């Protein structure tokens, strides 16, 4: 199924697993799955015949415990494993490498599956549509159009809002992440200040959605200048040893 094991390698690895402790076939399969984080999962049809072959060669033996065959290494098996110690070390290294590649394999595997699923479902959908009748005649066409337009408008509004919220949420997530990651309270405070300022700008923008005239702009400017002055001198300048920084 997977090129994880080269020729004869699986056999060697089975001997190694049985050397660690006597095990039954299912346990061997589970250990292999664990070793490869679920990506290589050998079927019983792969493992049991191999165990049987090892038994024929006299390298393993089995006894039946509670109805299950428990395999253990024979002395011959142990000798074989010792003889191939170098090869086993090499195999271990290669397996570590292949675990590293697992993520990539998973990604390719899922992508392939999804791609073929899409193709299959597209094809199936086409067939279903062929069988089904074509859409009913457009009655009340004008009425439909009008209602659709209303619905669209409503949806558009909804999603515009959704998008804004999503965007804001995003920034907050990031800012929080960095603040907690870098950990200093100064950074966290700065993030909070930025957020307060941004929130202010957002609120005013929303309030001015329907347009502003020159007179209003002038008033806004005056008020902002005053606010800025007071913030700098009365609040931010208060504890700051370097005013005007």
């Amino acid at each position, binding site marked *: 199924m997977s090129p994880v094991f080269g020729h004869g390698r699986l056999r060697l690895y089975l001997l190694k697993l049985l050397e660690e402790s006597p095990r039954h076939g299912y346990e061997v399969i589970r250990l292999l799955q664990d070793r490869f984080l679920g*990506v290589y999962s050998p079927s019983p049809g792969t493992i049991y015949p191999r165990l049987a072959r090892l038994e024929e060669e006299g390298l393993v033996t089995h006894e039946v415990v509670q109805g299950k065959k428990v395999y253990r290494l024979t002395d011959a098996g142990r000798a074989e494993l010792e003889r191939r110690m170098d090869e086993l070390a090499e195999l271990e290294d290669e397996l570590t490498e292949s675990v590293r590649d697992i993520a990539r394999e998973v990604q390719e595997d899922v992508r392939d599956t999804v791609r073929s699923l899409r193709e299959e479902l597209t094809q199936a959908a086409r067939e279903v549509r062929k069988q089904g009748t074509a859409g009913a005649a457009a009655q009340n066409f004008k009425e439909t159009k009008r209602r659709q337009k209303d619905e669209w408008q409503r949806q558009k509004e909804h999603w515009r809002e959704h998008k804004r919220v999503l965007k804001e949420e995003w920034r907050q997530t990031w*800012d929080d992440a960095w603040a907690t990651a*870098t950990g200093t309270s100064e950074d966290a405070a700065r993030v909070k200040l930025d957020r307060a300022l941004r929130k202010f700008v957002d609120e005013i923008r929303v309030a001015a959605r329907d347009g502003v005239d020159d007179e209003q702009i002038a008033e806004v400017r005056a008020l902002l200048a005053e606010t800025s002055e007071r913030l700098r001198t009365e609040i931010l300048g208060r504890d700051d040893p370097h005013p005007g920084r």
Partner: protein
Amino acid sequence: MARWTVDEPKTIDFDGVVALRANIVAGTISILASDEKPTLQVGEISGQPLEVIHEAGMLTVNHKSSGWDGVVKWLQNTRGRVAVTITVPPDCPVTLNLVTANAVITGLAGRVSVKTASGAVTLDGVTGSIDANTAAGDIEAQGLAGSVTFKSVSGNLALAGGSLDRLTAHTVTGKVTTDVDLRADGRAQVNTVSGEVTMRLPASTSATVTLTSLTGRVDAAFPELTRQDRPMGKDVTGTLGDGGASLAVNSVSGAITLLSRPGPEELT
């Protein structure tokens, strides 16, 4: 607390990890479930270093950068990226915030929460609950067994195989494609504006079904369902089997197709 700043390929082992949180801007991050010792492996790194913090079992992996504005600047100016693989215990909750980075997640049984701007997320054999929130990133998954919440603007959702308790998907233009079983009392709710929805359920499914599209076409391969073409949109509703589970799909202009997967005995 242990802290590392990683700027070259490196492997770090941890005694135990009870939760993982990663903020990655660009590159790939892979999270694999394993009962062996938790490990973080940086295979490739350029540009910004990666900051790794392990405190009270909580593992945090961050691209060092200063807030969202820093991220934007970074994306505009540099081509830095990282390839990081992390193995954690299967029940470890994982939170990922990604910008353009891609993620691969396998075998987790705990809670998985992923936010991405444009990064793609690949999930395999995740049995916990998955919460994915993306602007333009695609989510592709196989063999899931839990619940999925998906919110996206233009990102697509594709679920190949598996069995779900709960599926909630909201997209604007993103397509939703699924081939999963719905558990006996499972709930699936899919809403899109213009995204196409194609779902396949086993022919033996028991569920109440409501499929509604305002201007898109609605097709269903289950003969038990009845179709209504009203002036205001089309819908297909009805009950399959004893109606234990529920499926509701809603779209403004997206086409909706519900397909039926024959059981294994019907294939022969």
